[in-house]
């Protein structure tokens, strides 16, 4: 048996030490809500394949206050995901050149966010137009 007890610095709460780490962690944590929302949709798909009564049960469940609270939190999280996804995109994508000049990080983020706004509006209009 050894009496040696080497000092090991604790890593607990390492991400609270720096605002950069906090932003990193906030970005990663959005995945929990993305997963939960995917599970809600998957439950809907399974219920849809089981027939009208099963699917109506799922629709009723969506009307409960808990599911409203869940979706409000999910909406805020998805908006943050969109924002952070394009915010880090200049670092995650290969360096791009247009006309021999490097595309600026702000341009990449701005273009991505604009694309997201257009895509979201398109989805809202398509769904609204399908069953007016």
């Amino acid at each position, binding site marked *: 048996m050894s009496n040696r007890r080497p000092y090991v610095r604790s*890593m*607990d709460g390492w*991400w609270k030490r720096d605002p950069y780490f906090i932003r990193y*962690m906030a970005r*990663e*944590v*959005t*995945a*929990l809500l*993305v*997963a939960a*929302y*995917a*599970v*809600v*949709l*998957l439950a*809907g*798909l*399974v219920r*849809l*394949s089981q027939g*009208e009564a099963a*699917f*109506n049960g799922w*629709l009723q469940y*969506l*009307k409960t206050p808990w*599911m*409203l609270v*869940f*979706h*409000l939190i*999910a*909406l805020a999280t*998805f*908006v943050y*995901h*969109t924002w952070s*996804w*394009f915010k880090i995109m200049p670092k*995650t994508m290969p360096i791009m050149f247009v006309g021999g000049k490097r595309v600026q990080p702000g341009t990449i983020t701005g273009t*991505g966010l604009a*694309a*997201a706004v257009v*895509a*979201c*509006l398109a*989805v*809202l209009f398509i*769904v*609204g137009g*399908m*069953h*007016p």
Partner: protein
Amino acid sequence: MKRSNEPIFWSLFGAGGMLAALIGPALVFITGIAVPHGLIFAPDTMSYANMHAFAQNWVGKIFLFAVVALFMWHAAHRIAILAHDLGVHAHTATKVVCYGLALLGTLVAAYALLGIA
């Protein structure tokens, strides 16, 4: 040298993240807030008849499958990294659980969609 399987999972992560970033907020607003609570859209927007017709169509099937499966692969990749960041050092086990659940969700989604004829 053993080839890394990382590019496959990273591609799925990236595709899911991009899809979620582009249309995620609109989807959550429509399916979780507006339609169930009778805002803006017609009350029958997500009725059984409408959703069944949508899922019967191949375009609808592919869309629903892409959203559910890619969101899950995206989340699985991040949650596996999150576990590591929070001090879970069983890397292989973490990946097997996270990617395994994403694969299970993908198969269930495919099975449900193929069952809607």
